[in-house]
């Protein structure tokens, strides 16, 4: 491996350590906001927003998705659409009420 390649990896390592620090801080922030006196909806929104930021950091930098090939991006986009569909299935119980009376 050339010195150039080694330098490239060293730069990556700096990014990994920065992301590690950010994930640690965000974890503590998640716990801290859970003690805030807010409504359940606001608490869910805050917790899931921080979790999504953390997940994006892991997927983007540790899993290299920000520089990954289009084939994988399309595969994951399709999966994400199905995932969202899965998440909205419970909502149908609210939309499609059948009255027994």
């Amino acid at each position, binding site marked *: *491996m050339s010195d150039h*390649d*080694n330098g490239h*990896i060293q730069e*990556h*390592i700096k990014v*990994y*350590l920065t992301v*590690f620090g950010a*994930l*640690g801080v965000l*974890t*503590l922030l*998640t*716990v801290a906001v*859970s003690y805030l006196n807010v409504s*359940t909806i606001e*608490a*869910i929104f805050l*917790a*899931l927003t*921080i*979790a999504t930021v*953390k*997940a994006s950091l*892991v*997927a983007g930098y*540790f*899993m290299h998705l920000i520089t990954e*090939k*289009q*084939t*994988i991006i399309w*595969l*994951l986009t*399709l*999966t*994400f659409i*199905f*995932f969202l569909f*899965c*998440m909205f*299935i*419970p909502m149908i*119980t*609210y939309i499609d009420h059948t009255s027994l009376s």
Partner: protein
Amino acid sequence: MQIPYTIEERPDTGLNNSKLGIWVFLASEIMLFGGLFSAYVFLRMAAPVGDFAYWGSKLSIPMATFNTLVLISSSVTVIMSWASLKMKDFEKYKIYMGLTLLCAFIFLIVKYFEYTGKFHHGIYPSSSTFMGIYFTLTGLHMLHIIGGMIVMGYFWLPFGNKMWHSNPEQFTNRIEVAGLYWHFVDLVWIFLFPILYLL
């Protein structure tokens, strides 16, 4: 039989087969956990007001926070083990992979104390809807931790890492693929932690 495109990229996908394979597998894993997350939302919406919060308050936030930090650390060590191989430093690879396995082991020990603590207080999956989905989600996640430990343990031990000496490029790809799986396991926990322990 020689598996094609383990190192070089396939012209049509632009990827080597192992990387495409792990991403297709991870896509199926997203749907597996997606189905269970959907079940969690469904059960929570149908539960009496405050029921999930009541049972959730019986879980230990400090233990789960510690475990979250342990898993995040293991994600860094596993990527450092891959980066070490990229820099042809096999000794550092062994250290970082060993640390990853140690983190995974610590996670399991903490989980053991969490589970036995619940059982000691007479709390089981059958105790409530929340506990049912809690044990299902964390139990499945724990199985993924054990699966990852088996694979990474194999690549750490001498009989599993001897490929480094015969085909270093393919071995590095194997570690990258195992690392992708491990990051996914971390990613799932990032969502499990707030929805089960904090909300």
